[in-house]
C-alpha cells in the first residue's frame, strides 16, 4: 500500500528529472504504439502463426516477412526473479532496489519484465509506457478476474503511471458539467488537492456551492484569456501542480458563410488556442523542473480537445479550427515536456451532450462518461495519445 509522502522541505534541492533508456530499434516501436493504446501486442507471423519477442524483422521460425502486431494472451509464468542493487543508468540508479522478472509467456516467448511487488508464480504481463514514453513490459500478479491489480500502488510501477492519488491537480474550468465531473473523478482517485478555475468570480455558477463544499477543492479565479491572471495563478500554485487538466473552452456553432466577422472565431482561438499557450508558458517550465520530484512528482498534462480537431466539422467550423490549432500546439508541448517525463495527453471526445451541441442527434458523450474515462486508474491515463473514444467517434 502506498503511503502518503511527507511534506516537501522547500529548502532541499529538487531532484532533476532523468529518463530511463529511450533508444529502441524502429521495429520495436510496434510495442510502444500498442501500449499507447493500452494494448499488449506482440509480433506474430501471418504465415506460420509464430509469436515472437524481442521484435524482429522476419519470422524466426519460417523467415516470412509478413509480421503483424497482434494482441496476445497476457498470461505467463515467472521463471526467475532478481532485485537490482546496481544499475548503469542514472534513472534506475536513483530508484534502486529494482525488481525484475524472467517470464515465460503462455503464447510462447520468454520476456524480461519489470516486476510487481506481490508476484508469485502466475503473472499477467502488461505493456506500459515508461517515463521516457517507450513501451516496457510489466509482470503483475494474476489475481483471476476477481480483483484488479492497482499498479499505481506499487512503488516501482507507479513510476510508469500518472496516478492522481496524493497528487495536486489543476482543472481549468469548474463551471461546466464536464469540469465538475472531472473534480468528482479526481476526488474518487484520491487526489490530494484540486484547484478549480472559474473565469467569472463575481458570478455563482450552477454547482458552485457543491464544489465549494468538497474539502479537497480550492476555487480559483482563472481566465485563460488574461495573461496577467494566468501568470499570477502560476506564481501562486505553479510549483505545486502535478496534473493539469485543461478543459476550458469556448464553443460557438457556425462555419464560414453563416456569420460575418472574425470576433467569435477570435474568442474561440483566444481560449482554445492562446489559452493553452498562456497556460503552457507559465506552468510548463515549472512542471518540467518537477518531473522527478519524489513519489508525487509532476506527471501529466491533459488537454480536452475535440474529435473535430482531427477533421473539421463544418457546422462548427471555426471551433474545429481552434481545436486543431490547440492539437498542434499540444504536440509541441509534448515534445518540450518529454525530457522531464511529464506526459501530455490529448483527449478527443465526440460531441458532448451540452448546450453547444444541442442540435446534434444522439449518441453524445455525457460529461460523467468522459470524466471517468479520463480518470480511470488503469493506469491513469493509460495513453499518451488517446484515440477518439469508441462510443464517441461517430461521424456527424
Amino acid at each position, binding site marked *: 500500500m502506498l503511503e502518503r509522502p511527507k511534506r516537501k522541505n522547500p529548502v532541499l534541492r529538487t531532484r532533476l528529472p532523468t529518463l530511463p533508456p529511450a533508444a529502441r530499434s524502429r521495429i520495436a516501436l510496434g510495442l510502444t504504439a500498442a501500449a499507447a493504446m493500452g494494448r499488449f501486442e506482440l509480433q506474430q507471423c501471418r504465415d506460420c502463426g509464430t509469436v515472437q519477442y524481442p521484435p524482429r524483422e522476419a519470422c524466426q521460425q519460417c523467415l516470412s516477412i509478413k509480421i503483424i502486431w497482434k494482441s496476445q494472451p497476457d498470461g505467463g509464468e515467472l521463471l*526467475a526473479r532478481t532485485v537490482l542493487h546496481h544499475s548503469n543508468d542514472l534513472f534506475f540508479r536513483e530508484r534502486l532496489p529494482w525488481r525484475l522478472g524472467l517470464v515465460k509467456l503462455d503464447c510462447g516467448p520468454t520476456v524480461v519484465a519489470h516486476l510487481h511487488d506481490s508476484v508469485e508464480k502466475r503473472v499477467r504481463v502488461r505493456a506500459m509506457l515508461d517515463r521516457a514514453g517507450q513501451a516496457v513490459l510489466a509482470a503483475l500478479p494474476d489475481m483471476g478476474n476477481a480483483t484488479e491489480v492497482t499498479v499505481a500502488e506499487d512503488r516501482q510501477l507507479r513510476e510508469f503511471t500518472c496516478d492522481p492519488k496524493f497528487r495536486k491537480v489543476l482543472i481549468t474550468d469548474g463551471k461546466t458539467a464536464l469540469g465538475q465531473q472531472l473534480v468528482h473523478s479526481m476526488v474518487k482517485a484520491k487526489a490530494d488537492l484540486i484547484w478549480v478555475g472559474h473565469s467569472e468570480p463575481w458570478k455563482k455558477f450552477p454547482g458552485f456551492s457543491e464544489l465549494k463544499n468538497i474539502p479537497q477543492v480550492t476555487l480559483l479565479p482563472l481566465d485563460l484569456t488574461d495573461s496577467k491572471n494566468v501568470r499570477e495563478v502560476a506564481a501562486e500554485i505553479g510549483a505545486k501542480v502535478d496534473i493539469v487538466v485543461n478543459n476550458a473552452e469556448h464553443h460557438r456553432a457556425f462555419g464560414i458563410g453563416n456569420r460575418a466577422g472574425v470576433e467569435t472565431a477570435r474568442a474561440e482561438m483566444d481560449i482554445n488556442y492562446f489559452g493553452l499557450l498562456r497556460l503552457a508558458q507559465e506552468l510548463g517550465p515549472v512542471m518540467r523542473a518537477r518531473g522527478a520530484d519524489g513519489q508525487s512528482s509532476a506527471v501529466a498534462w491533459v488537454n480536452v480537445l475535440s474529435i473535430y480537431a482531427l477533421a473539421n466539422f463544418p457546422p462548427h467550423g471555426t471551433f474545429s479550427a481552434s481545436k486543431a490549432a490547440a492539437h498542434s500546439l499540444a504536440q509541441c508541448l509534448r515534445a518540450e515536456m518529454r525530457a522531464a517525463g511529464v506526459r501530455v495527453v490529448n483527449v478527443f471526445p465526440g460531441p458532448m451532450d451540452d448546450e453547444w451541441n444541442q442540435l446534434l442527434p444522439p449518441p453524445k458523450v455525457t460529461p460523467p462518461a468522459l470524466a471517468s474515462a479520463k480518470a480511470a486508474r488503469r493506469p491513469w491515463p493509460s495513453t499518451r495519445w488517446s484515440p477518439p473514444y469508441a462510443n464517441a467517434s461517430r461521424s456527424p
Partner: protein
Amino acid sequence: MRQGYQGVVVAAPVTVPYVRYSIRAAHWWLARALASLLQKSGLSKENVDGLSVSSFTLAPDTAIGLTQHLGLSPRWLDHVPFGGASGVVALRRAARAVQAGDADVVACLAGDTNHVDSFRLTLANFSQFARDAVYPYGAGGPNASFAFLTAYYMAQYGAKREDFGKLCVAQRANALKFDFSLFKKPLTLDEYMAARPIAEPLHLFDCVMPCAGADAFLVLSEEKAKALRIPSARLLGTIERHNAFASDPVQMRAGWALDREELYAQAGAGPADMDFVETYDDYPVISLMQLEDLGFCGRGEGPAFVRKHTFTHDGSFPLNTNGGQLSVGQAGASGGYLGMVEAIRQLTGEAGECKVPDAKLGLVSGFGMINFDRGLGSGAAILGC
C-alpha cells in the same frame, strides 16, 4: 567425422597487463599484444600473414582498419566479435587457414580498452535485442541476465551461494600466483558471503570486473613452430555452436551439450583425461553449466561436483588456473582469450607458479554474447602437448 587438426599448433601466449581503467584506445592494447607476440616468437611483422581480431571497443574500426593502423599486410584476415566465444572461434578458423595453406602464421589478438564510461555505452548498445528488450529494464547489464540464470539454477538444482563461493575463493587462490591478475588480496568464503548484493542472488564477488587489457597467441604449423624454436601445444579437437536449444525457456545448457561427443572423439580423449579445465567464468553459474555440458558431471550435478573438488591449480580438478576472469578481470573480448592463453601456458611450461603438475591435456571453453536472455555462442577446444 570432420577432418582433424593434425599439424596445427598454438604458441606464444601473451597477456598485456590489465588495468582497471585506461585512457588508451583499443588499438593501443592490440598493438601491444602484437608487439609482444613478435618479440616472444622472434617473428617479424612481415612473417605474420594471417590476423584475427576480437574487440568490442575497436569501433568504428574492424580488423581491416587495424591492418593499416599497425602497418600489416596479411593475406588472411578475420574479425571475430563474439565476446567470450572469440578465443575458441578464432582458433578454429585460424587452424583451418593454416592447414589449408591460406596463411602460415596467424596472430590471434583480443583486446579492449575501458574508459570511465565505455562499459555503460557498450551495454546500452550491445545488441538490438538488448537495446529493445533488456537495457530499458533497469540497465543492470549482464549482472541482471545472469542473476536470472543463477536464481533458476539454484531453484532447479539446489545450488547454494556457498557452492558458487567455493569456485570464487579457489580461483582467487590461483590468481594470487598469477602475475597479471588485478585482484591481489586473498578472498575467504566469509568475505564472499558477506559481500553486498548486486543483482540478487548475485553478490559482488560473483561478478567480473570490467577492465582494459589484451591477450594473444599464434596459430601455425608444427614444423614452423619447431623452426622458430618456440614451445607450442597441439590442437586436438574443437567445437563451436551458436543459439543452441533456442526453445528452452531459460538457459540451463548450451551448444557443448550438443557437440561434446564429437569434441572428445576428435581428441581421442574423454573428460576424465583432462589435466585441467579453463571455463568461461564471467559468473560462477556459467562454469557449472560448462562442467555439466562438457560431461565432467551430469545435468544438475554441478553443486555436488563443486563440493567434491578443490579447483586450485595444485589440487583436485584444476580449474581456471590463473584465477579466471573473476579474479584477473574482464578486459572485454579478452575474456574470451584468457583461458586459451592460460591453457597454452600450462602446456608449454610457462605457467609459473600456477603450474598444474604434469599437465598433458587441457580443455578450454568459451561462451559469449548475451544477446537477449542467454549466451548465444559456445565453443571448446582440447589442447595437448
